[in-house]
């Protein structure tokens, strides 16, 4: 059984449809990568699951249960964590408070989980008392991912975690995604940096204009000439 399965999802904002019936899946303990040009609907897929875009048709299954249109706190309680691309930290709250907010649904034993996040993102240790809005982009991304990990999710959904980051931070973030995945967490990764993302992924989905264009193992997509020419920049 897939960890996450999306069937024929039609979703959008207001009267506009962005996704015109896409299929996706994340297998337990694996990384699925969504790539594609701007406006393909990559981010919308994640937003629709969390109710930030409206689902018109299709369904979303998590461990076999239908979770279509469920409220966000129910999804989080089931073990789905989501890191939006922008505005993904509470800017006026300290780093520690951001992490505590990630654990809102399970307040006990927070210290141990903060310690686990520190192990994953050591640069945050000395920033715990600083307001998250004062951090650099890369560190903010670490806070956002740390916040999402506080409930020890089964599935982590990341929306372009390396957007706007320097190459150094970009490598760090990809490296951390691998580490998180190796601890057993399934990952659904939306990325602009398609080559690097496919290099760490197991399954790849190429979306274009709200539809599935290519679906294959990430390794195969990387060597697929058609995919390379159209979507990976040659």
């Amino acid at each position, binding site marked *: 059984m897939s960890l996450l399965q999306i069937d024929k999802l039609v979703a959008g904002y207001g009267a506009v449809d962005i996704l015109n019936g896409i299929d996706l899946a994340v297998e337990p303990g694996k990384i699925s990568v969504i790539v594609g040009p701007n406006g393909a609907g990559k981010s919308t897929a994640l937003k629709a699951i969390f109710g930030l875009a409206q689902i018109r048709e299709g369904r979303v299954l998590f461990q076999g249960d239908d979770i279509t249109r469920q409220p*966000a706190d129910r999804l*989080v309680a089931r073990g789905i964590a989501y890191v939006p691309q922008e505005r993904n930290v509470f800017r006026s709250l300290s780093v520690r*408070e951001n992490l505590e907010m990630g654990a809102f649904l399970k307040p006990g034993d927070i210290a141990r989980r903060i310690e686990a996040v520190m192990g994953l993102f050591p640069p945050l240790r000395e920033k715990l008392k600083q307001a998250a809005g004062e951090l650099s982009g890369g560190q903010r991304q670490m806070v956002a991912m740390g916040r999402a990990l506080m409930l020890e999710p089964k599935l982590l959904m990341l929306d372009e975690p390396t957007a706007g980051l320097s190459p150094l931070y970009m490598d760090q973030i990809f490296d951390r995604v691998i580490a998180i995945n190796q601890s057993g967490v399934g990952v659904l990764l939306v990325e602009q940096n398609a080559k690097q993302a496919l290099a760490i992924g197991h399954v790849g989905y190429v979306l274009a204009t709200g539809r599935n264009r290519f679906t294959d193992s990430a390794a195969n997509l990387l060597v697929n000439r058609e995919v390379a020419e159209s979507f990976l920049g040659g």
Partner: protein
Amino acid sequence: MIALSDFINLYLLPGLVVGCIYALGAIGISLLFGILRFAHFAHGDMMTLGAYLAIIFTANFDWSPYAALPITVIGTALVALLLDRAFYKPFRRSAGIVTVIASFGVMLMLRSAIQLIWGVDVKTYDIGIRFPMEFGMLKIAPRQVTIVLVTAALVIALHLFLSRTRLGKAMRAVSDDPDLARVSGINVEQVVRWTWIIGAGLAAAGGVFIGIQTKVHPNMGWDLLLPLFAAAVLGGIGRPYGAVAGGLAIGLCQELATYPWFSEEPFIAPGYKPAVAFSVMVIMLIWRPTGLFRGRAF
């Protein structure tokens, strides 16, 4: 010129007391705007309601208004929760202006209900006359001390709540970014309920203080609305500590503006006090719309 003692006893101390009362009202306006993104026009009438609920206990059971304060605060908070459920929650996903208009309606209903139940006449708590305590040239009424101390205690309690408790931090998180709060698993409706409890509770305390300080009448909330919003805007909307500073500043400005600074006559006639609050608000909106504490622009 008047003596320094008169300046302190007749202008500075009353300004401080009025400022405390404004602060208690403005905190709720600021918190509610931060969480629910709308200007709550019925907030002055929350204060009126608090002032009248206390009358139930002072008039019928001969309680002192201070003794009635806790139960008044709880009662007003409960009414606020009911009003939210009935008139604001259905508009949670509508444009902000819809809820603003709804709060206008709630304001009129509250005032009419108060007039219906308690009548339209001015009322007092019948605390009797207490002579002020004299400390050298200072003459301080006991009620002034109580009002300032209780306000300070409430503000400290609010600070501890916002900075130390899980729910208080969640309140700041929702104020920061409601969507992110939701996807983090924060129960936003629970946060909204506590915002009402705190905002209305503090407003009720402020209302009772007005009754202790002067008198109670059905239109008092309406008269308070302008200084309350001026205080919230001055402090930076969505910033509860800013609202405290803004409330104190507006209260002091209003009282000190009537001091005979340049002649034997009051600098500004007392009847124009509301204009002082209005002027401060307008200047602030032009000069620095995010307020002293860098809140949100209206």
